[in-house]
């Protein structure tokens, strides 16, 4: 029997009925947990988990993060308002800066919605997950009582980026938390969201995040996610986005930390001319395992996706990338581009990349490519021939390789803001190499 599932069920059983049943969700929560138990964690034969073994994780036990720990505000001094802060899965009202929000922007923790009369919480939480390998989504559906609910009203253009901050901090025992989030942009609304996943110190917690992104016609979302967790952390994340016509979703994911980080990014382009641009960096050093799985679905005509992902594996790290693009029947005029380049920085590191393009429509433009290689000897020589020492030349080329994905954010200020985390992680890779 699974240590992980048993320990989570023990936590669930100890919850007061009033919490479990809030907003009439009790039955759905119990059913999701039962389903997770019935199918267990995905094993090596589950196609979608083939390159990410969960055996070690399945045997670990976790306890509920019952009490919210106190965190020194100085730790977050660099992260401006408006910001929403969660510590070990708990919303921290004191650390959050949510006063004077721009008109049209509404932000609420899920825990508050669950005790209020806002039906949005129910809409999100009531969703079913019918596939046997959706264990973490099912666990999330049964066990999530916290998260960020963000809504932007129609035509509201929100200038200041909303910072969603998820901090892990050491506690007695290994904690598990499950969070459910919703970003909802109404017609022609626009917003920038920056997600931070940080740790104050070494820990071995499990975070399970499920985020829904709903973009109504003409909505524009710029979304950066910086996963800079501790090397002992396990982070399971899933993003399900749905784009209506003319919606534009532009996002960059920096996967810089955690011992095991798995992110499923599913984007459905449901309305005509919906547009998804994505960049990402997978950085696997030490013994870290970083797995990103893209599932882009072109449902409507004239939709576009443009995906640029870069993987770097050093030491005994392993980077896994799956770039799945499906163009449904009738989605004519679709344009889809996927570029996945990978740098292998040591002989013990491993990179698994799998671009998968499925086309059921007639008139489409689609291109995909994946490569795994080392730093270009010609580039290296060119820099050295101009006087740049070898180590510096390597660092420069490695950073340039990774920063190409960051460039997808377009906004120079935002790029400069996020680049230091990337640079610091790359520098520590080189220092240990």
């Amino acid at each position: 029997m699974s240590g992980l599932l048993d320990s989570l069920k023990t936590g669930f059983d100890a919850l007061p009925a009033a919490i479990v049943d809030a907003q009439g969700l009790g039955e759905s929560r119990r059913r999701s947990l039962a389903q997770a138990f019935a199918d267990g964690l995905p094993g090596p034969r589950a196609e979608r988990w083939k390159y990410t073994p969960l055996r070690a994780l399945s045997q670990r036990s976790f306890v509920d993060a019952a009490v919210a720990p106190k965190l020194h505000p100085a730790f977050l001094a660099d992260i401006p308002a408006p910001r929403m802060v969660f510590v070990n899965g708990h919303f921290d009202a004191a650390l959050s800066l949510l006063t004077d929000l721009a008109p049209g922007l509404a932000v609420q923790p899920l825990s508050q919605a669950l005790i209020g009369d806002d039906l949005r919480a129910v809409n999100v939480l009531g969703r079913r997950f019918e596939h046997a390998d959706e264990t973490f989504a099912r666990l999330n559906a049964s066990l999530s009582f916290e998260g960020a609910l963000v809504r932007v009203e129609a035509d509201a253009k929100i200038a200041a980026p909303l910072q969603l901050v998820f901090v892990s901090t050491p506690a007695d025992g290994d904690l598990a938390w499950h969070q459910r989030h919703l970003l909802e942009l109404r017609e022609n609304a626009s917003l920038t969201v920056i997600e931070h996943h940080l740790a104050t110190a070494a820990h071995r917690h499990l975070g399970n995040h499920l985020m829904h992104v709903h973009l109504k016609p003409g909505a524009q979302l710029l979304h950066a996610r910086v996963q800079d967790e501790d090397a002992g952390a396990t982070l399971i994340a899933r993003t399900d986005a749905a784009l209506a016509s003319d919606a534009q979703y532009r996002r960059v994911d920096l996967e810089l930390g955690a011992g095991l980080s798995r992110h499923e990014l599913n984007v459905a382009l449901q309305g005509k001319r919906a547009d998804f641009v994505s960049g990402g960096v997978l950085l696997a050093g030490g013994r870290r395992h970083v797995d990103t799985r893209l599932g882009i679905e072109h449902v409507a005509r004239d939709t576009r996706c443009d995906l640029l992902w870069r993987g770097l594996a050093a030491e005994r790290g392993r980077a896994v990338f799956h770039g799945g693009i499906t163009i449904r029947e009738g989605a004519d005029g679709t344009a889809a581009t996927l570029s996945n380049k990978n740098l292998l920085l040591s002989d013990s590191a491993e990179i698994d990349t799998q671009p998968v393009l499925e086309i059921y429509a007639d008139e489409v433009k689609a291109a995909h490519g994946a490569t795994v290689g080392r730093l270009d000897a010609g580039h290296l020589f060119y820099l050295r021939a101009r006087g740049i020492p070898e180590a510096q030349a390597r660092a420069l080329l490695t950073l340039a390789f990774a920063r190409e994905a960051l460039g997808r954010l377009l906004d120079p200020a935002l790029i400069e803001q996020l680049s230091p985390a990337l640079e610091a992680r790359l520098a520590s890779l080189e220092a240990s190499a």
Partner: protein
Amino acid sequence: MLKIENLHVRVAGKEILKGLSLEVLPGQVHAIMGPNGAGKSTLGNVLAGREGYEVVEGSVSFEGSDLLTLAPEERAAEGVFLAFQYPVEIPGVNNTYFLRAALNAQRKYRGEPELDSMQFLKRVREKLSVLHLKDELLHRAVNEGFSGGEKKRNEIFQLALLEPKLAILDETDSGLDIDALKAVADGVNLMRSPERAFLVITHYQRLLDYITPDVVHVLADGRIVESGGPQLALELEAHGYAWVKDRVAP
């Protein structure tokens, strides 16, 4: 300044340079001409320190010290510059950032103070205006999306900025139209000084219409088979390289 003695170089197991000797004095411009496959580019690459060029015999001294034991970056900092025949595009590395890193790395090696960004930009603007280059070039990634001519002009711009003692131009004229060729030659002529030497490697004589060499060498089958004044280049232009075959020792 540069003294090459009996240099034998092997590339991928094959001997390409077979006993090349050459001496360049400060202030001189030497042209190295020769047919395809003579070893012209091998000479440039081995002087700059590219991997895969194995020196099996002979020596190269630069200002009295052994050049061949130095890493490529050390050769650059000592004052050797290679203008590449095929400058590479390096996506993601900003040209300005690259140039400043290069210049400051060289200065640091030589024990000179590094330039801050203001000092550096001032210097860059001076060189740009002298070479009639647009500063748009600075904002792009190294050589990315540059035309063939722009790449070669960028090489000459780097030459002007880094102010080496010895500049090796490896077929810098290849693939250039006449305007670009003139621009490159103007840049080189502006850089000529009693302290600085040039080694101009070329297949054709036409670059030498604009850069007048002091000495012209003919390289064939890995050796210098003929040396002379500027008129030698004109003879080569008139008669081609066919006669050179007769000079190649068995």
